């Protein structure tokens, strides 16, 4: 898994690619925590190149979103497709996150 951050005016965009599994999901959560600690209110996860996510990854998405919601922020998902999208739909997590096709649409919503 690779995480590439870009700081924007109102949010931090995190481009996540590869496979998020039991061995590396914590790296995503830690990256998010670091941006939250630095004052980021909204995080946008760009997931076009995310091929795989297991329940350990879902836990991290959920935990980060709960933390941000508690401080009136949000974790926004975009580009969800394939297996990751199926997994978010099956667990009905998809309804708990703002979801957009592209980061541009996500940014425009803020």
């Amino acid at each position: 898994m690779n995480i590439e951050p870009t700081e924007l005016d109102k949010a931090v965009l995190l481009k996540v690619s590869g496979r998020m599994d039991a061995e590396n999901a914590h790296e995503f959560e830690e990256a998010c925590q670091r941006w939250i600690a630095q004052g980021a209110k909204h995080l946008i996860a760009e997931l076009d190149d995310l091929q795989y996510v297991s329940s350990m990854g879902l836990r991290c998405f959920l935990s980060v979103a709960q933390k941000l919601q508690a401080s009136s922020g949000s974790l926004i998902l975009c580009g969800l497709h394939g297996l990751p999208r199926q997994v978010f739909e099956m667990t009905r997590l998809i309804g708990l996150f703002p979801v957009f096709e592209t980061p541009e649409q996500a940014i425009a919503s803020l």
Partner: protein
Amino acid sequence: MEPASLTLPAKAESISVFREFVRRAAAAAGIDPGELEKLDLVLEEILINVARYAYAPDQGVVEVACSGLGHGKVQVEVGDYGRVFNPLELDPPDLSRGLAERPIGGLGAFLVRSMVDSIDYRREGNRNVLSFTFPNAGPTYPNADPT
């Protein structure tokens, strides 16, 4: 096809080796390559449970055995010698809760049940055996609209 098996330490680092092992068996059984990531996920969820709960940390082994069933299906058995544990008895997660109330855990076993064709647990002497067949022929998940 004769069953093939692989035994490794019950820890997270073994998952990727088991993944390649099961993928080879799945390819030999003629499973649609588009289903392989789902198979990876089922295997990971089961193995991470064994790694975390079956034994004291860094102890014990887990054995994975695969056999082709024909018609593009494979049977996978995951065995450990840890404490008695049937993941199929876990309560299903409440998927109707909002973000703030949504429990963080419990989704792994739910995903496994949703993605396999059939799954059974048995206790064989001092061994837990979780046996599943894959892929499922029906709807991709229980909430799927039957239309």
